[in-house]
């Protein structure tokens, strides 16, 4: 299964990104890691180019909202079929209530939203989700 991953926007927090890369590979995924400082369009292009099954975006520095609110519009331009859109990390500025954050990001077009959730917990849930979808 192919995963495109990276850190969105003007965000340089690379540590989790390195660990995600390693963990995805260990779980048997084929990984295309765009690294930090990646814009939404670049992610979507990469999904198309690599014919990926999953787009897994990280955001740590609190800017995700500004960068991701346009996802729905961008998604409507291409046909992504059943690509799974996931986002995780630190998804707000300041201390946020996950109960309002999660629905917001779902509204933007993400299937899975992991606010301040451990990497491995998140990846376990991703794998379950893929199984449920019959992938």
């Amino acid at each position: 299964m192919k995963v495109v991953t990276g850190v969105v926007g003007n965000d340089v927090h690379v540590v989790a990104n390195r660990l995600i890369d390693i963990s995805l590979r260990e779980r048997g995924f084929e990984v295309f890691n765009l690294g930090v400082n990646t814009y939404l369009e670049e992610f979507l292009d990469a999904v198309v180019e690599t014919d990926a099954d999953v787009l897994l975006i990280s955001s740590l520095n609190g800017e995700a909202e500004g960068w991701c609110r346009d996802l729905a519009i961008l998604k409507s331009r291409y046909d992504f079929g059943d690509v799974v859109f996931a986002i995780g990390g630190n998804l707000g500025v300041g201390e946020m209530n996950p109960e309002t954050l999660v629905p917001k990001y779902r509204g933007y077009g993400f299937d899975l939203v992991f606010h301040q959730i451990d990497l491995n917990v998140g990846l376990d849930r991703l794998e379950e989700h893929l199984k449920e979808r019959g992938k």
Partner: protein
Amino acid sequence: MSLLQREREIIVHNEFTDRFDFDEVREFVAGASKNLFISHRFKTTDKMQVQPRGGFPTYDKVFKLYEEFKSAGVDILPLTIDSNTRLNDYATAKKMLALSEENDVDMLNGYPLINHGYRTTRKMITHFDTPVSLRHGTPDARLLVEIALASGIFEIEGGPITYLLPYSKNFPLDKAFLYWKYVERVCALYSELNEPINRESFGPLSATMQPPVIVLVIQLIEMLLSLEEGVKSFSVSFSQTGSMLQDIVSANVLKRLARKYADRFGHKDADIHLVYHQWMGAFPYDKSFSDALITTSTVIAAMVGADKIITKTRNEAFGIPTKEANALAVASVQYTLGMLQGLPDVGDEAEEENLANMVDEIMEAVFNDPADTLWRKVYNAIKKGHIEIPFSPHIINANEVITVRDPDGNIRLYDRGKLPISDRSFAFEKSKIRLREGERVVDKIIRDIGIML
């Protein structure tokens, strides 16, 4: 008109800056209150200076933040810049600032100084009449620093390496050196008018498993690059490693070598200060554990004899702290410093010797590069992997050095990559490492990153 002045005029002339009045700014700096200069503060007190981090998108929120800090007993105020501004993306910063002002939600993780401008910002700085330190992480900080100095911010953090390798993915390295040369020279110019402008390097780097040898080398290099341009007051820094002894060893060696190299290059008149950053890596989600971590950092800062401490907050793991959480940390750190007494003088000869040797070895390799100027030698050193930063997002970073913790928590070189350190020094490092039977190095590293969780 000097070349520098011509460049300055170009820099400050842009669509985001109101007319920049050089004469007025010169006059302002020349007549500015001594209380705005941290360099002056360092001369007049022995007390460790307490400085939080912090910045909000709007003027009002920063003003309130400063009020909160002042009543918590802050020594030095911070001005943290948002990350769009850091990447010179003033247009996005402007958009997000407008959204923040309209909707009363913070859409930026710091203060977009360019968009606010120096006339507005200076009002705030002079109102509080307290030194302010500019925290950014910008490779091209020319405009930012012009606006900051014009605002009355007389301490500028960063440097061509420390604000590039940890903070950028592909910003060209040589440009960064040249842009920072500009910054140093502007700081040096203003330093002649009143008390010196203080420059501070950013020792935490990527805040993740940074071996002291690399931190120290980069601190010394940025210090030399700055002094070379005429800066007279400079702070070297590093952040809590996770081992008390390694912090003490780092501080002892850094203090000694900073003086040694400054003197060797003819900067006997430069004042050099030591700054300690509380734990910069991943924080626990339990806020009372964060409090404990913050106090522990404070105790260590006192033991290493730092001139300034930069504080974290109990909200670190969650996001940008509220002003209340931030001020709470300041008050608590001041309390701890006030009551801590009878600190022993500690050191470790063997550790200090080995660290100093490694630093000297790399420094000599840098100096021996055939390039004509120091910055070019350093540039080559980074390209050759003679200097690199673990967990840097930058594409030019060698990414070959691997570090792990020894059983006492000291960060050790497991793989020295291309660092030009001797077999003997490296053997000392290696001899301290113990891996568990069958443990993979990557699992060890993940554990070692998360020691404070």
